[in-house]
């Protein structure tokens, strides 16, 4: 029953854009049909996955599949259900949002294509999550990757979009090929293409599988330094696509990593340590790069890297827990990671959607062009600030709950005698704190620069509040953020179930409720809300209309402050960027003062992606140049070509023995 619901949901979602593809470019029917199909299909999917998640039962079936090694083996367990719920929540919201954001009448060229592949992407994501067979998984995996490529390059006439699409598709291919090798090795180890814990295998084989999984899945998830495709792709895709990609798509990498790690009951300690290092690097550098950005969506993209880092830290602790046979660590780590997957999906989608609303209203992603939008777009501003508070992991919203679980896992690992474990905690916890502090700085920067203060350019003047179709999805996401933040115990059974699936050995004894103060978090959360409300009433009383005067901002006596004197996002970030300049390598162009009467001058700063722009692209260009050097071998001279044949003949005859 549940699996039928989910499969129906996948089919409906996957074909949602199909009717519209056959309608005329001008017709608005297609987009409505797509949205309806998306919502109906997702409702089915949520019903099915929700039932599985709550009932803590897994459901599976398999059909023959006429490809070599293939079997339509499907299994929906607690982990899959968690990912399914997320997919089926965010995708339809994006689709509804798209009704206004990417109207067919405003984008006759690419609207149909966009919706078609939006549905395909969603269906592929759901498919790979429920796949219980390597080939089926890879099918879903790459369909997802290709659909995402089409979506990223929706506006392919833009050179930047084209470049981002290329980097994305190459990165994703490298990852996919790693997965090819990994699944082939798993096949060798387990003797079957069905997902199963392989029996005893040589350590070197297991280690290779692990490394390939980390690279292959890490590339998709965007772990630093494998994140290179992510900022460009997320920045250049339409915003509801960015929301889906950042909220859901990159999590497929996490899903894969979680799934593969679950196969190994006694992983070596260094696996966990490697993951931890990757997580810390992704988290800290991800947020550091984010601080340097002045493109709103690029900034959000780097925060995805950061949050993937946090999730990876959680997984790392769980893996460490498994190798040290510490069920508490396992449960806290994996539930923290999985909950953060959910949470990041919610608040990052929320942030991308509100950023999209800003982009839609002003036509620019440049933070330093904006300002004071809170007055024109109050609901969008509210949505953004909720997302910002949540992503910084601040109470009383959802980000705090999952970070708390990861912290608890790290702290608990501190208590262990094994040096590996407590060193992990000793580095992990402060790193997480640093990430939190930097994220806070970054979101204070972007929220304030975009929504607060006064307008920095005339783009803001024409801005308008987003329509109800755009606000409603944001409101739902914000409500989810608040719900998880305030009533985390409600989802504890789902998390427990997932943890048991991931590590069956923890199935007796350590429910999450006994490890983490979930109900007390509700108490403190509601207390905080109440205190804030009381304080709000108090300040409203104390500053009643009769006692308030309006004036210009006090600028130390300067009488005519203008919006151009505001602190910009770049200057706000400058000191932090400088602190991390060893990794960020910011580019600055400052004017030189040549004469006593300086002319008009300008200053600009830019933080390119160090890994992409300073390492990978130059390397690729170098390799390309090297390849071009070989062109001498084929200069059109037929004599030389015949000589090649002769040489091959003689050479092979020579070695024929």
């Amino acid at each position, binding site marked *: 029953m549940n699996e039928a619901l989910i499969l129906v949901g996948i089919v409906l979602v996957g074909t949602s854009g199909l009717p519209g593809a056959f309608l005329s470019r001008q017709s608005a029917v297609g987009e409505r049909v797509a949205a309806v199909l998306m919502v109906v299909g997702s409702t089915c999917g949520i019903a099915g996955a929700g039932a599985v998640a709550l009932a803590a039962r897994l459901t599976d079936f398999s059909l023959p599949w006429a490809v070599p090694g293939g079997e339509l083996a499907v299994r929906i367990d607690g982990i899959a259900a968690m990912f399914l719920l997320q997919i089926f929540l965010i995708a339809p919201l994006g689709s509804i949002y798209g009704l206004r954001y990417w109207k067919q009448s405003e984008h006759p060229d690419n609207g149909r294509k966009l919706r078609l592949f939006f549905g395909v992407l969603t269906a592929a994501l759901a498919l790979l999550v429920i796949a219980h067979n390597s080939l089926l998984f890879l099918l879903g995996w790459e369909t997802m990757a290709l659909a995402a490529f089409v979506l990223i390059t929706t506006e392919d006439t833009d050179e930047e979009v084209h470049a981002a699409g290329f980097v994305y598709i190459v990165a994703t291919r490298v990852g996919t090929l790693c997965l090819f090798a990994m699944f082939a090795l798993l096949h060798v180890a387990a003797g079957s293409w069905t997902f199963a814990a392989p029996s005893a295998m040589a350590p070197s084989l297991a280690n290779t599988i692990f490394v390939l999984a980390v690279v292959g899945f890490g590339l998709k998830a965007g772990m630093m330094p494998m994140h290179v495709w992510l900022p460009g792709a997320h920045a250049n895709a339409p915003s509801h696509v960015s929301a889906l990609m950042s909220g859901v798509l990159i999590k497929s990498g996490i899903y894969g990593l979680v799934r593969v790690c679950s196969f190994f009951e006694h992983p070596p300690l260094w696996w966990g340590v490697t993951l931890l290092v990757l997580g810390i690097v992704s988290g800290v550098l991800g947020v550091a790069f984010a601080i340097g950005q002045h493109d709103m969506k690029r900034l959000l993209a780097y925060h995805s890297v950061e949050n993937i880092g946090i999730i990876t830290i959680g997984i790392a602790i769980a893996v460490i827990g498994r190798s040290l046979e510490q069920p508490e660590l396992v449960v806290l780590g994996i539930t923290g990671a999985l909950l953060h997957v959910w949470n990041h999906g919610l608040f990052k989608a929320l942030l991308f959607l509100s950023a999209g609303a800003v982009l839609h209203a002003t036509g620019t992603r440049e933070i330093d062009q904006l300002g004071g939008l809170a007055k024109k777009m109050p609901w969008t501003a509210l949505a953004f600030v909720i997302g910002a508070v949540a992503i910084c*992991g601040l109470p009383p919203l959802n980000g705090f709950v999952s970070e708390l679980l990861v912290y608890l896992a790290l702290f608990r690992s501190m208590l262990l005698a094994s040096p590996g474990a407590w060193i992990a905690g000793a580095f992990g916890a402060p790193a997480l704190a640093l990430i939190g502090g930097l994220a*806070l700085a970054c979101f204070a920067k972007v929220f304030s620069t975009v929504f607060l203060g006064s307008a920095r350019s005339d783009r803001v003047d024409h801005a308008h509040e987003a329509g109800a179709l755009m606000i409603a999805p944001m409101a739902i996401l914000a409500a989810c953020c608040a719900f998880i933040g305030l009533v985390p115990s409600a989802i504890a059974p789902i998390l427990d179930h997932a943890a048991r699936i991931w590590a069956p050995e923890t199935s007796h004894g350590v429910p999450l409720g006994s490890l*983490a103060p979930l109900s007390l978090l509700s108490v403190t959360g509601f*207390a905080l809300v109440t205190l*804030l409300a009381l304080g709000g009433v108090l300040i409203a009383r104390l*500053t009643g209309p009769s006692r308030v005067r309006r004036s210009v*901002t*006090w600028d130390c006596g300067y009488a005519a402050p203008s919006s151009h004197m505001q602190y910009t996002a770049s200057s706000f970030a400058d000191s932090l960027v400088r602190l991390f300049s060893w990794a960020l390598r910011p580019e600055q162009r400052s004017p030189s003062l040549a004469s006593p009467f300086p002319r008009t001058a300008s200053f600009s700063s830019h933080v390119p992606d160090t890994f992409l722009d300073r390492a990978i692209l130059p390397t690729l260009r170098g390799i390309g140049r090297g390849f071009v050097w070989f062109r001498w071998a084929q200069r059109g001279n037929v004599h030389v070509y015949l000589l090649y044949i002769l040489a091959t003949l003689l050479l092979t005859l020579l070695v024929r023995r």
Partner: protein
Amino acid sequence: MPLFTIDTVIHVLVVVMLPPLLLGVITKTKALVAGRVGAPFFQPYYDLFKLLRKGTVYSTTTGWVFRASPVVGIATAFLASFLVPLGHHAAPLSFAGDLILFAYLFGLARFFTVCAALDTGSAFEGMGAAREATFSSLAEPALFLGLLVLVKRSASLSLGTMLGSGLSAEWLGAGASLVLVLVSLFIVLLAENCRIPFDDPNTHLELTMIHEVMVLDHSGPAFGMILYGAAMKLFVLGAIIVRLALPFDTANPWIDWGVFVGGMIALSVVIGMVESAMARLRLNQVPSLLVAACLLSGFSIILLAR
């Protein structure tokens, strides 16, 4: 859950009443060291009452975020106080991981303070906001490292237990590492509360300040709330340090309360002495000091692991 006991009532009363006094003690200490008589101990209370009766000027640029930030500051500090044991007396709320909530509550307040500063559209306040965000993101790891030492030492994940009755025994066993943590946490306290050598709360030279310049545009009751919230933050952070430094448990609850209040006043005196003895650091040296605090705690962890 000892939420509604006589201790809780006293806890709330102390948290509400005491914070401004600390500011008064610090000011008085500095005045005495400088050879002046100085303002009375209760001057901060007078100031607060004066501000509450005043009218308010709001900049036309600002919006609801600007108005909300003082509320957030007080609410979070007040809630955080419930997680901290005051001297011997246990915290009303105590659970595994409460130290994380403790730290992140201040994060929430900081987020709104910084946003409120930027909401004014003033370059000065933006500057302060940038500095605040920068330095506190470095103070955060130092705080966590310090707390980690306590976690490791007490094998507990809640502030109540790690600062509980076992603490005095631990001093005998792991005194050196606790001293290091104490120093580290003291540095964090100074940084988080924008005291010298990080910031000078007394000057009004906008270009050199951090916290003060951020609240430049607040006035009247709202400004009063900000001052009060800041004092409360100093109080709760100070409470941890005082408990750590004076882990005495007597049988008599009133003596315990006395020890705690005395400790808090002593802490204020120490802060006053530091402020008198030191000059404000150049801004670009502030990160070094914070990293030093991290290193102290880190070294202390190594000592524990030995």
